[in-house]
């Protein structure tokens, strides 16, 4: 019985996980296109530029993405043999890009975002039965508007 439940969970995890991931990537790529003219820079000070800064504000973006059953099982298997945990790569990649996008979306009209930083945290590290394994990425920077 446990075995059947396990198989069902794996199929559900893989099916829905793949579907959600594909949809998310589509949305990310579309929005990245849309915001590609809002540069994000890791420098603390803006580069010399024409015009003067009329407004600067804190821009933040935050996202939490959960791992599916299939990915978690694959990562647990990786724990035994070692190597790259490729099943988590897409998870982290999506979270990072989504957080950056949300940060951009939070400051409409800005010319650029400087001093961008990314923080990451894993929620419920203890991925035992019943608890959820998910990753949080928090992106923040200074949005400046030039005239």
């Amino acid at each position: 019985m446990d075995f059947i439940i396990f198989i069902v969970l794996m199929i559900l995890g893989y099916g829905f996980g793949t579907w959600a991931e594909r949809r998310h990537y589509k949305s990310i790529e579309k929005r990245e296109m849309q915001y590609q003219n809002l540069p994000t820079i890791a420098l603390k000070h803006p580069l010399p530029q024409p015009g003067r800064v009329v407004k600067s504000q804190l821009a933040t973006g935050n996202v939490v993405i959960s791992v599916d059953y299939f990915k978690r099982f694959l990562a647990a298997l990786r724990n035994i043999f070692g190597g790259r945990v490729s099943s988590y790569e897409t998870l982290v990649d999506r979270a990072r890009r989504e957080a950056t996008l949300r940060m951009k979306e939070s400051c409409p009209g800005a010319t650029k975002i400087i001093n961008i930083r990314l923080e990451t945290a894993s929620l419920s590290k203890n991925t035992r039965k019943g608890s959820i394994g998910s990753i949080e990425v928090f992106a923040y920077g200074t949005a400046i508007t030039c005239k």
Partner: protein
Amino acid sequence: MEYSGKLPTSNVNVSKRSPLQELCVLLGGLLGLSLIFYLCLGWAVDYSIQHISPEEENDLYALMKFPASEEGEASERTLAVQALLQELQKCAPLPYQVSIDVSESKQVNAAAFPGGHILIFSGLLDQMSSENELVFVLGHELGHFKHRDHLRSLGRGLVLWVMSLFLLGPDNDVGNFLFSALGVADQTHSRQQESAADEYALEVLNCHYGHVGGATRFFEKLRDLNQTPEILKYYSSHPSDQKRINDLNALAVQKNFRVDSVKPWAISTKQTTKKMGHPKG
């Protein structure tokens, strides 16, 4: 310098390898390794069991609690079963102090525990329409003691449990998966044990009554009561009822056992749910 935004054409942060392929490779490797490990340890258990004397067995399992019947006076039926078992030991000489308890439960099951304990559920007794059937059931459990299957199943269960615990820690997804996968693989082994115990029970029956009448009656009842779909038989720890009946009939013919009329026993009409057997670890 004018800024113009441009997005990268490919994503270098994500591996291109298919996760399903990765799963197959990792899972295949893990299952293969654990199967080899498990089989080796299983053989070690089989080998070492021959060298464990019943006294040592009693010492080993002295700390283990076995399910026993309720406190208080033993019922008339319990006493009758105990007396019958005493009689049977003349036909089945075992190096054990065999004891039996009746547990009040609707389950149609009996089990052999280390140290010579047999536990029989009252649901099984309710199903008995003749003494011969009961003798067969008791003979079956005595057969498990004779072949030391109770130690085998506990030993293998222990191997599996220790393996999973050391490799993966308690209550782990992968561990639970392995547990069920290897458990299924081991059921064939268990079905052989059940058949061997049936064979022993037939000999005990013949020795006690001088004929083997009533040997298959119990299985016939079980067969009529629960019809297992073909597909589920791979998961079953016991051979199918029909197969057991056929095997017993064939064996009786082969050994020239006589079939005669049976001796009556208390009759009941309760429903049956399970088959008799010995516990899995």
